[in-house]
């Protein structure tokens, strides 16, 4: 399938600091691609370059086969963009804000399109309220509708799930998935909340300090993570014996007491989990629950930037 977004050695320097360093991306049509990394990793700068809003220092890029520097309007006509901390004209209603975007895009049947989008993001009731009265989460939803007004081939979403309640996050992610599957929209989303978005991404790139440190499907990246995952075992009483048993199993590295009462967290090779459980049960421990503490990419995520910020589970 053709590349929707492609960058080669894309670099951006501000004075002394290199914000994006030799970025190579190749995102296929209809793919949902996650750009993951802590705040300040260069995600937003990358997005601004792809939109032609910021000049790269070096390197090349193609959006739908076009260079955004040479064909800015053609690119902007086909790329919907939801900025980080999106803002609207406070004095205009949500609907009026969308109408302005629609007019700039010369959308024909705009009232119908706008009604439809407001419904999709669940803002019909607040549509005729001034945007200045919207909550952060409502603005985020309106921003989603705003990015979709032009019926884009590519959707670029900068931190689409921040400031939204968990229910809203699920709705937004569901919407992203549907757009990709039903309308073959290519989605590039950035986030610092890995757990929230990994489920919806076909592929992710982990972006730290301007460079991609890992790239692939969430599954591949997890498999690449040789070594160990953390598993929580819960017992019906008698944790002490279970602890000594766990310690005796050769493939288990490290055992600590878990936060849940009567639980232990062991670090082990995921391939040996079944044998470990067997060993515990045959030894007589009353095992009532087993749970991987790390989600698929959590280990990678922690390895690269746990020290830089708190990872919200």
């Amino acid at each position, binding site marked *: 399938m053709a590349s929707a977004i492609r960058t080669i050695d894309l670099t951006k320097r501000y004075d002394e600091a290199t914000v994006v360093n030799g970025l190579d991306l190749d995102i296929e049509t209809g793919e949902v691609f996650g750009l993951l990394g802590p705040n300040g990793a260069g995600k937003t700068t990358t997005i601004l370059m792809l939109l032609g809003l910021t000049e790269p220092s070096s390197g090349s890029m193609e959006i739908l086969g076009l260079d955004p520097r040479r*064909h800015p*309007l053609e690119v902007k006509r086909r790329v919907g963009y939801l900025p980080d901390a999106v803002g*609207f004209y406070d004095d205009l209603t949500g609907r009026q804000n969308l109408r302005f975007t629609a007019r*700039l895009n010369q959308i024909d049947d705009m009232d119908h399109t706008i009604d439809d989008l407001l419904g999709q993001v669940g803002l019909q009731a607040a549509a005729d309220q001034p945007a200045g009265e919207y909550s952060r989460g409502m603005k985020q939803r309106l*921003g989603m509708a705003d990015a979709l007004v032009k019926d884009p081939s590519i959707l670029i979403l900068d931190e689409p799930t921040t400031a939204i309640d968990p229910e809203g996050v699920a709705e937004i992610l569901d919407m992203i998935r549907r757009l990709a599957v039903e309308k073959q929209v290519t989605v590039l989303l950035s986030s610092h909340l890995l757990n929230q978005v990994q489920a919806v991404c076909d592929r992710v790139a982990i972006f730290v300090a301007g460079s991609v440190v890992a790239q692939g499907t969430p599954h591949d990246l997890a498999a690449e993570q040789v070594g160990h995952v953390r598993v929580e075992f819960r017992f019906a009483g008698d944790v002490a014996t279970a602890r000594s048993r766990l310690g005796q199993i050769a493939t288990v590295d490290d055992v600590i007491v878990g936060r849940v009462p009567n639980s232990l967290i062991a670090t082990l090779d995921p391939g040996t989990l079944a044998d470990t459980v067997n060993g515990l049960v045959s030894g007589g421990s009353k095992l009532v629950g087993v749970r991987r503490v790390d989600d698929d990419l959590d280990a990678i995520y922690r390895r690269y930037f746990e020290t830089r910020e708190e990872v919200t589970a």
Partner: protein
Amino acid sequence: MTTETAREPRAVLDAPGGGWRVVASKELADHLYSGRFVVLLAVLGIATAAAVFAASGAIREVAQDAEDVTALFLKLFTVTTDPVPFPLIIFVSLLAPLLGIMFGFDSVNGERAQGTLPRLLSQPIHRDEVILGKFVAGIGVISIMLTALVAFVAGIGIFRLGVTPTLAEISRLVVWLVFAIVYVAFWQALATLVSVRTNRAATSALVPVGIWLVLALFGTFLFSAVADVISPDDGAQGADLANAEAEYLISQISPITLFQEGSTVLLDPEVGYTGLLTFERVDRAIVSELDLLQSLGVVWPPMVALLAMTAVLFALAYVSFMRQEVRA
């Protein structure tokens, strides 16, 4: 191959260029519904009404004695009367800058503060259409207000004087109105430039307001101080004249001076000169009525200078905005 390369830039040129109209119509609607529009209209309206009532009263007294006063109607704008210390054109020259500043000072950094700029710039319009649309909308609302004020003055004048303006007077008023719009556009361009360069609306309001106040309140003092340094009046023969000439030349950098000078000539057919009235030039000042074309012949230098200053400021704002990067 050649056709391919020839077509590529075309694709950009063929792109719709109507985006500035969409921006301008939104901005104009914003201005007209804004609180600042209502407040400015009320303040200027009340002040103008007071000035005109006073002026028309004075003119009535004069007109009763003299049968043959030329351009009686335009005297509304140029006559000085007791409660108001200066004529209406001076009043406009001092207060109208506020209009331009109010509709320009947050035009670009307001978008930045609301977080709407990245969204706006990611729409398929050229970046210059954003600033052009905003500037055009500003001029639009300024034109509406100034036209309304002039019509208001004319209305009060007709009512109080019982004299209808002649065609010559109306054409003088129209030319003056255009001149006044350019004058206010100068201040709008200045405010827009500052709003491109600064991030906070408070700062970008203060800078043009500061320049306006300094020129309006201390302009005369400043110009004479500079003139005294450049060409001191040391009592030598002709030194006083040289000093006055220098002061006049320096005062020409102020848009307020340019506007006052141009307005006086445009609205008073008996004023046939600008600048210093020296002995050699006294023939130009001999009272004889000029027609509009003759008046225009006299005032084209300040008019063109003002237009050029406005154009330069807008060009600076434009270039500055085009070169600015959106930053993360």
